[in-house]
C-alpha cells in the first residue's frame, strides 16, 4: 500500500527532528549545524588561535603601512569575520557568503535599507488608516529583509531558513565577541605590561 511508503518519509522526518533535538543535548556527537557548538570552549580556542594567526598576518601585511586605526581596524574586522567563517567550516550560508566576498555584502546591505526608508517617506499623508495598514502589512516583510541584510548571504532566503541562519550567526557572533574581547584584553594588558617593562628595563 502507499501508506507504508508515505509514512516512511514522515517517520524519517520526525526522526530527524527528534534526532536533531537529541543531538543538541548530546555533547559527544554534536550536530555541525547546531548553533550551540559556538558555545564550546574548543570552538573558542580554535577561533582564537586562528584569529591570532590572521592578526599576525594582517600585521605582517601592513607592518610599515599606515598606522591609522581605520584601515587596520577594517582589516582586522574582515580578518576576524573571515576567521569566523572558516571556523564555521562552511556549513552555513553566512559563512560561505563571507568567504566568497564580504565587500559585496557590505554594499548590498546599505541599499535595501535606503530603499525601505524611501518607501516609507514616499507614502502620502492621505489615507492614514489605509497607509497604516499598508505599512503594517509589509512590516514583517520589511523586518525580514532587514534581518536578511544583516546576516551575510541571506538576503533572499525563505523565512524559516533565514531564522535558522540567523540563529547560527548570532551564536557565532557571540563567540566572536567573546574571543575578541579576551584577545583584546590580553593584548592590551600584555602590551601595557610590556611597554612598562620595556620602559623599566633599559634603566636596569
Amino acid at each position, binding site marked *: 500500500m502507499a501508506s507504508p511508503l508515505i509514512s516512511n518519509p514522515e517517520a524519517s522526518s520526525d526522526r530527524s527532528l527528534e534526532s536533531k533535538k537529541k543531538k543538541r543535548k548530546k555533547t559527544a556527537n554534536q550536530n555541525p549545524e547546531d548553533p550551540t*557548538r559556538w558555545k564550546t*570552549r574548543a570552538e573558542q580556542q580554535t577561533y582564537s588561535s586562528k584569529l591570532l594567526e590572521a592578526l599576525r598576518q594582517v600585521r605582517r601585511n601592513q607592518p610599515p603601512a599606515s598606522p591609522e586605526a581605520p584601515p587596520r581596524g577594517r582589516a582586522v574586522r574582515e580578518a576576524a569575520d573571515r576567521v569566523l567563517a572558516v571556523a564555521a567550516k562552511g556549513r552555513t550560508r553566512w559563512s560561505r557568503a563571507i568567504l566568497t566576498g564580504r565587500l559585496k555584502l557590505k554594499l548590498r546591505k546599505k541599499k535595501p535599507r535606503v530603499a525601505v526608508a524611501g518607501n516609507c517617506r514616499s507614502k502620502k499623508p492621505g489615507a492614514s488608516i489605509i497607509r497604516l495598514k499598508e505599512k503594517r502589512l509589509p512590516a514583517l516583510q520589511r523586518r525580514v529583509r532587514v534581518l536578511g541584510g544583516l546576516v551575510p548571504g541571506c538576503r533572499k532566503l525563505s523565512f524559516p531558513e533565514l*531564522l535558522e541562519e540567523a*540563529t547560527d550567526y548570532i551564536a557565532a557572533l557571540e563567540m566572536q565577541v567573546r574571543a575578541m574581547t579576551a584577545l583584546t584584553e590580553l593584548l592590551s594588558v600584555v602590551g601595557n*605590561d610590556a611597554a612598562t617593562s620595556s620602559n623599566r628595563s633599559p634603566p636596569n
Partner: protein
Amino acid sequence: MEKEKLFMNSGSPPPLSYAASSSSPPPTWHSASSGMDVQVGELNCSSEQMRNCYVNLNWENSMDQSGAFESSLSSMVSSPVASNATIHGGPLALRELIGRLGNMGNSGDISPQSQTLGGSAVSYIGGNNSTNTSCYSTPLNSPPKLNLSMMDQQLRGNLPILGNSMPTHPSLVPFSTDPGFAERAARFSCFGNGNFRGLPCQFGFNENEFSYRPAPRLENGKLSRVSSSQCLKAAGSQLGGQENKEAQLQDGSETEMRSAAAASALASERKFSKLPGSSTPESAEFASAREESSASEQIPGGEAGLKGSNDANTRKRKAAPRGKAKDPSSSPSGKDEKTALEKEDQNAKKCKSSDSTGNENNESKAKAEPCGSNNTAGDADQKQSKETPKPPEPPKDYIHVRARRGQATDSHSLAERVRREKISERMKFLQDLVPGCNKVTGKAVMLDEIINYVQSLQRQVEFLSMKLATVNPRLDFNMESLLSKDILQSRGSLPHTVYPLDSSASTFPYAQHTQQGLPLQSSISNVTETHCSVNPLDAALRQNVGMQFPPADGFGESAPRVGTFWEDDLQSVVQMGFGQNQSQAVFHPQSFHGSLPTAHMKIEL
C-alpha cells in the same frame, strides 16, 4: 459533497434496478446483517432487537419474491425467538435464515438479503455465544472456512441441520463454499467501518471478480454491491441521526462511511430503537434495522467501490493506514484473531470503536495520526473536499500533520500549518539565544529584537576589531606567545589554575611574562564567560605550554626563534588542548582536524 451526492445517486439506482421492488427489504436485510456482523455488542443486543430486524424485514418485504421469502422470514423470526432460550437455538435460527436466504437467493435481491440475514444470524449467534469470533465476519464468512471459533463450528454444525429442517437449497452450498467471497465480504464489512477508502477498491475488484464467477458468486457479488450501496445509504442516514446529524445520505459515501464506522462502534452501545432521521423511509427502516447491525460497515465498503476511482483511491489510502493504525491498538472487544478477515474486522472494529470512543474529531485525529504520511495535494483535496461537509470532523491527511479540531483541513492550510510550526520552532531557538526576548510575543517584535541584537553584536565586533587594531602594533612575539598560551589554555579558568602556570613558568626567561600573565589570566577569566569547566585542562595546558617554552635569554635575541618556537608550541598546545578536550567529550573531532591544517598553513606563512 457533490461527489458524494453523485455517488449516492449512482449507487442507489443500480441496486434498485435489479432489486427494484425490494428496495426496502434489501436495505433492512443488509442493515440487519451488516450491523450484526460487525459488532459483537450489537449482537449481544436483546433478541428483541433481532426480532425487530426480522420484523422489519418482513414488513419491508413487499416483493414478489417475498412470498417464499416471507415464509422464510417468518420462520426465521420465529426461530430466533425460539432460539433465544438457548444459545444453540440462536445459531440454528441464524443458520436457518442463512440457508433460506441463500436458497431463495436466486435473484440478486434475495441473495444479498439472505446473505445479510445470514450474516446477521451469524452475528446473532456470535452474540449469543458470547464468542466474538464470527461477529466481525460477514455472514458469508461463517459458513466458509473461516476458523473463527467454535461458534463457527457450531454454525457449520447447525447448517446441515438447518438444511435438513428447511428445503435444502443448492445456493446454500455456494454460500459455504465461497470462502473467497466470504472473506471479501468480511473484509468489506470490516473495512467499511474503519477503512472506507480501502474498501472501494477492493470491493470494486471483487465485484469484477464476482461478475466472472458462477451464478452464486455473482449473486454474492450483487449482494455485496447491493448491500453496500444500501447499507451505505442507511449508514449515512443512521449516522446522520446518531452522530453528526450532518451525515446525510447526500453527504456522500465518505461521510457515510465515517459515520457508519462511528455508528457501528456506537451501535453496540445503542439500542435498536434509535433511528436517525433518514431521507427516505427505506433508509429510516434500514437505519433502524441496522443500528445494532452496523451494516454500514459492509455497505460503505461496497458502495465506496462503486464510487469513482479517485474516491476509492483516497479512501483506500485512508483505509490502509487506518487499518494499520488500528492494528497495534487493541480493541476492547478484540475477538477475531484467527483469520485475516477477523483481523481486518478487528481493525475495522478498532477503528470504529476508537471512533466511537472519541468524538468525531478524535476519530479523525486518531486516523490522521497513524495515517500520517505525505500525500499529494490532490488526494488531500479530495479527502478534504469530502470532509468539508462535516466541519466538526477533523480531516485525515497523509501529511504528517495532525489536523486539529476546528481547524481548516485544506491541504494548503495544513502545509501552512507545517510551515508555521517550523517558523515558530526556530523563533523559539532564537528566543533562547537573544536575551530579553522571553517577554516579547509576536513575530514582528521578536524580529525587531533579533535585528537589534545582531546589529549590536556586529557593532561590538567592529569596535573590538578597532581596538585590536590599535593594540596590534604593540604585539610582539613574546606577547603573541603569551597570548597564545593564555588563549589556548583557558577561557573561563578559575584563578587558582593560574598559579601552577606561574610556578612552572617562573623558571623560564619569560617569567616576567608569566607574572604578567597572571593578571592577564585573571582578567581573562573575568572577562571571558564560558560555560565550560576547563580547570584541569587549563592547568595541564598551562603546564605543558610553560614547559615547552624554550629557555630563551631575552626578547630580542630569541625573537626569530621565539616566533618559530611559538608556532611549534602553538601546534603542540593546540594538539594537547585538543587531546584534553577530547577526554572531556566536549570537543568536536572534526573541528580539530579542520583547525590543525589551517593552523599549519598559517604557521607556515
